[in-house]
């Protein structure tokens, strides 16, 4: 068995651009990922979506090529270019066959360094976005995700969907995209991750050729690291959707930043609570015992600042109150009674055993390297990962549950037909109807 934990090669160009490379030999693939280290949290107030629109706009033409020329050239090589803003970073990705390394590297550099910002593309982008956002309302799950984010964080930086919404759409102009690009895209706050079938020396040489002359913009926005002081008051909120047969349910409170020392124990606790599929308490209770849903999961969104902790599920509308009540009981139980030694051991062996599976594909490796860089996890993180999981004690897990699960702070959103569920939800306590 070869040593399957990849070696991460690192170099810095004189302009400050950080290069990270992994040699990969299973298939002749090359995955290039450029990250500018500010994302949707740096959208100007009231203009949610600017980072994400900027990312897409980079793919709509460069100073040398139109959208069609660029797409045709890339797709003629069987490659795919995509760009989007997430939280904490804006990401441009170009993946293709390793035989095309020089062309793919040059194209990535052209897209990031010399975008065309073609005026004619802007109204088209806006209309496409308007149509997509309208259509999203037909998807109850996505609708509930977006509505919960807004309900919970309000106008704070994590409060809008990364891709924006119909309200912010009207306020965004081409100038906003140019401003975002000039401010946030600079080699000093960027990294290029390269995973592919090529020696690192060769990837680095191609990168140097294509990127060394880039000076970029700046200064970038200060990093967003502090959660807002005021959040939505705990309680139950109902949004009436008479057209649905099931309710979408989101229940959550404020989580932790990625840098928090309880990261590993809390991940284990959350696996036991609701991330571990059929091994989780929520799935056991709500699906296996009660048959109330097809799926339920909980997740902590670890970001630079504290992201939300959210439990997501759906159920035939008449069962909404029952499901809400049961979920809260499970959270309280995990917090107060803790997890068992067997549950912890199983969660640990899951993460330890699953570790190699995440390193099978260039994309899997690339996303881990991006996280290591973005959150300063140290270049030995992959080597030490299993040890960090294994060393969590039962006491540490119980303390993490006690400290970070807050059943009294839960904000509950139900999106569903009010006629079938509002009465039962009222019986659980104060119910606020929202639109």
């Amino acid at each position, binding site marked *: 068995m070869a040593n399957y934990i990849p070696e991460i090669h690192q170099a810095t160009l004189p302009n400050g651009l950080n290069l990270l490379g992994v040699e990969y030999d299973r298939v002749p693939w090359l995955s290039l990922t450029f990250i500018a280290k500010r994302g949707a949290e740096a959208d100007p107030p009231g203009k949610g979506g600017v980072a994400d629109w900027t990312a897409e706009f980079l793919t709509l033409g460069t100073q040398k090529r139109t959208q069609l020329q660029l797409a045709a050239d890339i797709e003629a090589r069987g490659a795919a270019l995509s760009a989007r803003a997430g939280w904490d970073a804006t990401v441009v990705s170009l993946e293709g066959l390793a035989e095309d390394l020089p062309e793919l590297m040059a194209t990535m550099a052209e897209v990031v360094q010399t975008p065309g910002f073609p005026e004619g593309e802007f109204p088209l982008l806006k209309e496409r976005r308007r149509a997509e956002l309208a259509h999203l309302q037909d998807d109850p799950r996505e609708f509930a995700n977006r509505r919960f984010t807004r309900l919970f964080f309000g106008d704070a930086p994590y409060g809008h969907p990364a891709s924006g919404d119909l309200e912010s759409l009207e306020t965004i102009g081409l100038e906003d995209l140019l401003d975002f690009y000039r401010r946030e895209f600079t080699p000093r706050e960027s990294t290029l991750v390269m995973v592919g*079938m090529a020696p690192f020396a060769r990837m680095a040489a191609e990168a140097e050729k294509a990127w060394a002359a880039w000076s970029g913009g700046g200064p970038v926005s200060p990093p967003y690291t502090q959660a807002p002081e005021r959040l939505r008051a705990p309680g139950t909120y109902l949004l009436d959707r008479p057209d649905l047969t099931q309710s979408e349910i989101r229940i959550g409170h404020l989580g932790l930043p990625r840098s928090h020392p309880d990261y590993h124990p809390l991940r284990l606790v959350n696996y036991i609570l609701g991330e571990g599929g059929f091994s989780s308490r929520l799935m056991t209770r709500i699906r296996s015992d009660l048959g109330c849903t097809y799926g339920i999961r909980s997740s902590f969104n670890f970001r630079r600042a504290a992201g939300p902790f959210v439990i997501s599920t759906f159920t035939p509308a008449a069962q909404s109150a029952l499901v809400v009540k049961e979920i809260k009981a499970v959270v309280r139980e995990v917090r107060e009674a803790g997890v068992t030694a067997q549950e912890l051991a199983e969660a640990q062996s899951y993460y330890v055993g699953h570790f190699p599976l995440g390193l099978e594909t260039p994309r899997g490796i690339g996303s881990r390297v991006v996280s290591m860089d973005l959150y300063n996890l140290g270049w030995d993180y992959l080597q030490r990962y299993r040890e960090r999981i294994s060393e969590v004690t039962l006491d540490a897990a119980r303390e993490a549950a006690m400290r970070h699960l807050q059943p009294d702070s839960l904000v509950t959103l139900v999106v569903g037909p009010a006629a079938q569920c509002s009465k039962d939800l009222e019986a659980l306590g104060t119910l606020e109807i929202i639109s």
Partner: protein
Amino acid sequence: MTLALKLDPAAWQPEIEIVPYRLDNGLKIFVLPDPRVPAVSLQLHYHVGSRHELQGITGISHLFEHLMFRGSETLGPEEFSRILQAKGGEINAFTTRDHTSYFENLPAEHLELGLQLEADRLANLKLNDENFQTERQVVISERKLRSVDSPFGLVLEQLFAAAYTQHPYQWPVIGWDQDLKRMGLRECLSYYQTYYHPGNLSVVIAGDARPDQARDLVEKHFGKIPSPGPVADLKVAEPPQRGERRALLKKVSQVEALFAGFHIVGMAHPDVYPLTLLAVVLSGGRSSRFYQEFVKPGRAVEMEAEIASPPWTSQDPDLMVLTAIAAPGQSLSQLEDDLWAALARLEKDGVQPVELARAKKLIRAQAARGLSQNFYRGLLVGLFDMKTGDAGKVNEMLKLYEAVTLEDLHRVAKEYLREDNRTVVALKPVSPEESRTLGEMV
């Protein structure tokens, strides 16, 4: 010691090494050795899907897939998943029109545990009324999620129901609501006896496993499970469609949309390769015809030509589905006219050499990327064997794409994308009030 990596793309071979075996009870085994990551994908493909169902018990294949997780004589409900997940495994299953597949992507050292538990639930499944009732409720919720409350679930169900008049592809894999409510444990027991035995099963092991050892492990755990022999081959055929069929579905929606299904071929037919490339020419990527004509200018939220490409193509003739989702405020009927005009141009002029070359390279690149995963390699082999009767065909796939000519594309466009061969279902948005007057959505 770290082994030197082989970093020369030109030296890479896409062929999958396949070591086949067959046990005396009829069980097929395919081992695909690859030691580079200490993991295996263990897959069990039962040759039964919604294609084998009858009216009145539609959805039983998928419901039964759920029941396979509800415990055995020795294991409680969901314990199967819990035990293997605690070893680091990814455990899941899926049901299609032609097969029901269970998989465990595992650390290599736990292969035997996976085999032991799979054999246990095949031989000793606990089928009781309590398990049945719980999973029926779960599946009814899943049906609401996937079909009723999803934007286009019911529209697509109508498309297949109208396009197939005699073939079982006319009903959805998840089944009709009334059948889910009607069927009972008795039907499940009969289904289990007919389809769940080694004679109707292929086991695929892809990854860090030695073929002879893997075979012996399968024999150890499955060798004594009896089989009544292979299930009789089900011959079903949809008669040729003789004229366009149209239907309309009204529901609350922000957009108008239409779905057009054209009868094409099953996976063993050579035309599946030019048809897949044709779909890429039409809508693969942002330089494609449909993106440039409809999506980029904001006329359509989505305009796609979709074909389930190998290994996902169905065993019997499938549909190529054109999806047109109009942007709000855009006329769907104008969009439809322009879509047919685009097809007419294709049928008249064929495709350009540069379009075909691009489509071929996109397919080659996607294949190369997919082959990095044991899971995908295993699926390719298992499903090629099941649907074409020849696992080795998987290694001809890229050559078959490569051999497609401009004339092939032109021919399949004319042969399959004909008005008489299509079924069109449109979605018309209505208000919640009007929706209520139209009756319950199930």
